[in-house]
C-alpha cells in the first residue's frame, strides 16, 4: 500500500511547480496552464484526503472544482482572444495599460 502522504507530497510538488510557472512566465497561455496545474494538484490533495478519511466530500468538491475550472478556462481564453484582437499580443509585460 502506498502511504497517502506520498500523494500529498506529490500534490505539493506539483503546486510548487505551477506557482513557479505562474510567477515567471510572460506568455498568458502558459500562465493559464500553470494555474490549471495548480488546480489539479489541489484536486489530488482533496481525493487523497477523501481516501484517507473514508469520506466522499472531497470527491464532491473535486467535481465542483472541475466545473469551475471549465468555466474559468472558457472565460479566460475568451478574454485572451479579445485582448489579442486589440493589442496583437498576449505577452503580459506588454499589457501595461493599468500600470502605475
Amino acid at each position: 500500500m502506498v502511504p497517502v502522504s506520498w500523494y500529498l507530497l506529490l500534490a505539493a510538488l506539483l503546486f510548487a511547480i505551477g506557482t513557479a510557472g505562474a510567477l515567471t512566465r510572460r506568455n498568458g497561455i502558459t500562465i493559464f496552464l500553470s494555474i490549471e496545474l495548480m488546480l489539479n494538484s489541489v484536486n489530488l490533495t482533496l481525493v487523497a484526503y477523501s481516501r484517507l478519511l473514508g469520506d466522499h466530500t472531497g470527491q464532491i468538491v473535486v467535481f465542483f472544482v472541475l466545473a469551475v475550472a471549465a468555466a474559468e478556462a472558457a472565460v479566460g481564453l475568451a478574454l485572451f482572444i479579445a485582448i489579442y484582437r486589440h493589442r496583437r499580443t498576449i505577452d503580459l509585460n506588454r499589457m501595461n495599460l493599468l500600470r502605475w
Partner: protein
Amino acid sequence: MIETAIFLLFALLAVGSALVVVLHRNPVYSTMSLVVTLVSLAVLFVLLGAPFIAALQILIYTGAIVVLFLFVVMLLNIGREEIGQHGGMLQKVLAGVGALVLLGMVGSASWGLYGGAVAKPLDEDFVSLTTLASELFSSYLLTFELVGLLLLVAVIAATVLAARPRSGERVEQEVEVAAGPAAGPGPVTATTGDAVLPREGVR
C-alpha cells in the same frame, strides 16, 4: 508492490511533464505535456479509489479544457515567447525560492498531519458511484444547481467576449471601403487597425 510501482511511475511522469509545461517556450508543447500530467493524475485518482473523478478528469480536462487551450493557441498563432528584456533573472530566482518555501510549508504540514499513514483497504461502498451520487444529489443539490448556473453564465460571457461585435464589423468595412480606392493596399491595414478603437467606443 505493484501499486507502489504504478504510483512511482505515474508520479514521476506527472512531475516531469509538469516541468515541461512550465519550462517549455512553445505553448503547443506546454499544452500537450499538460495532457500527460492530467492523464497520470487520473491514474492516481483510480489508485485512490475515485474512478468517477478519474473519468471526469479525462473527459472534462483533456477532452474539453485542453482542446480549448490548443484551439486558442492555434487560433492566435502564438509562437515561442521572445527572450525577456525585463531583467527576468531576479524574477526567476525569487519565484523559484518562493515555490520551494511553499513546497516546504505545504509538504511539512501534510507530512506532520498524516506522516506515513496508510488508508484502510478500499471497500465496495467507497468506490461505488451510487453512494457518491446519492450524497451529491442530497446534501449538495443546491450547489450542483448553482454550478449549472455558473456554467451558463460562463458560456454567455465567453460568447460575448470572443464574438466580433456587429457594429464594429460594420465600421471596419466602411473604413476599408472608404480608404481602399484612395490610399491603395498599403495603408488599408493601418486604417482597419485604427477602426478597432471606435468599435470600443460603441460598446
